[in-house]
């Protein structure tokens, strides 16, 4: 990889993380929202031990998907509102470096939220089966696919009139395979199912990740051009 490309990507990640750790706006919002969603699920689905067996993966993934749109919207809105995006685009770096920078910092926020919500879920529901490395791997793969498409689409929706409202409506129908595959795979892991039952959704998840990272990388130029 081109060293200046790597440097530009790292610079954007550094900028996003530094800004976030000073203001903590985005993480606080995502985290409190996640906890609220889990709390609502508790009463909506009556999460007793029998029910939890089957719905844990679904509850967690729904929570992350909803919280994720908050983060994606905010992370792009900050760039747009203060004119930072124009500054970034003026910089003499490859535009895909901007995409990867934004995507990786978005992924970092998502993973931080997941890293806090998982122990919380385990604490609330006495559910330790979610601490398996396979489960974590599925979480990582799912988040990568979700964030790749999400970053691309949030760069798009932020330029429209309806802005924040539009992102989930555009994102969810396209990202549905990630959510279904992740729920299937992580559900199978929690319930100690056989390897083929874990692997078939996992393979599709990997296929999705590869295709959509490549596509997002190709399309980002078209989205930010004026």
């Amino acid at each position, binding site marked *: 990889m081109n060293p200046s490309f790597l440097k530009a990507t790292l610079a954007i990640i550094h900028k996003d993380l530094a800004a976030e750790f000073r203001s903590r706006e985005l993480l606080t919002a995502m985290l409190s929202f996640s906890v609220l969603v889990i709390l609502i699920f508790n009463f909506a689905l009556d999460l007793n031990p029998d029910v939890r067996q089957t719905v844990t993966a679904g509850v967690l993934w729904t929570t992350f998907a909803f919280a994720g749109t908050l983060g994606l919207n905010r992370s792009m809105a900050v760039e747009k509102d203060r004119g930072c995006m124009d500054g970034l685009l003026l910089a003499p770096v490859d535009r895909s470096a901007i995409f990867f920078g934004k995507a990786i910092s978005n992924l970092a926020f998502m993973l931080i939220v997941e890293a806090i919500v998982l122990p919380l879920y385990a604490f609330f529901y006495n559910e330790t089966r979610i601490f398996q490395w396979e489960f974590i791997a599925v979480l990582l793969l799912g988040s990568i696919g979700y964030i790749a498409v999400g970053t691309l689409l949030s760069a798009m929706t932020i330029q429209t009139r309806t802005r924040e409202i539009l992102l989930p409506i555009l994102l969810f129908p396209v990202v549905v395979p990630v959510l279904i595959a992740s729920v299937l795979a992580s559900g199978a892991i929690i319930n100690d199912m056989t390897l083929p039952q874990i692997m078939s959704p996992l393979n*599709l998840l990997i296929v999705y990740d590869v295709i959509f990272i490549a596509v997002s990388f190709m399309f980002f130029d078209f989205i930010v051009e004026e």
Partner: protein
Amino acid sequence: MQQKPTLLTILDVLSIIVIGYATYSALFIAPTELVMGEVQRVFYFHVGTGWVALLGFIIASIAGILYLINKKMIWDRFGFAAVEVSCMFFIITIILGSVWARPAWNTWWTWDVRLTTAAITELIFIAYFMLRAGIEDPEKRARFGAIYTILGGLSAPITFMVIRLFRSIHPVVVGNPSAEAQGGFDMSVDMRNTLFIALIAFTILFIDFIWHRVRLGALQEKVEELKLEKIS
């Protein structure tokens, strides 16, 4: 103002005739299915509309790619026309399917592979319309629309494969003899012919609709331009 091409008028008349004949064939020529009875006649139009809806979805993605390559507005009009027509046909397919599913499966809807994918595709179309409605600049609208149709076109097959990991009960009628338990059936020669006629009829109707919609798109653009001229 552009004159309506003669070929388009011919196509209009032709599509009325073939749809009329396909209706006649489905209602009177095709034999009544032994187990399901008259309701099975819905099948011919269900497959016909489903086929063109899928065709429109694929055409929209291809038009999206072509637009991004050479940035000609004609591809945007073409893609938008394909999405709009396909969206309508998908709704008809779903409704006709439900009409059949109620007696055959004893439910209007089930979360089967084809049904779920159709529903998600319909949501992708709605998102596409909302995206376009939120952008004023025609060039940007075309660009974003093209990208979104391609994303949709890529994710829909994966959605289909993922949902297939759940069990499916939708019958695979063509080329599958073991589907009877799910409401499948063997087709007689008349049934096959009727299906074939319906497929051709809907393809002609589809081309006719797309053509009209592309022309309408060109007129819309002209109106927009005139409005902008008046304001400035």
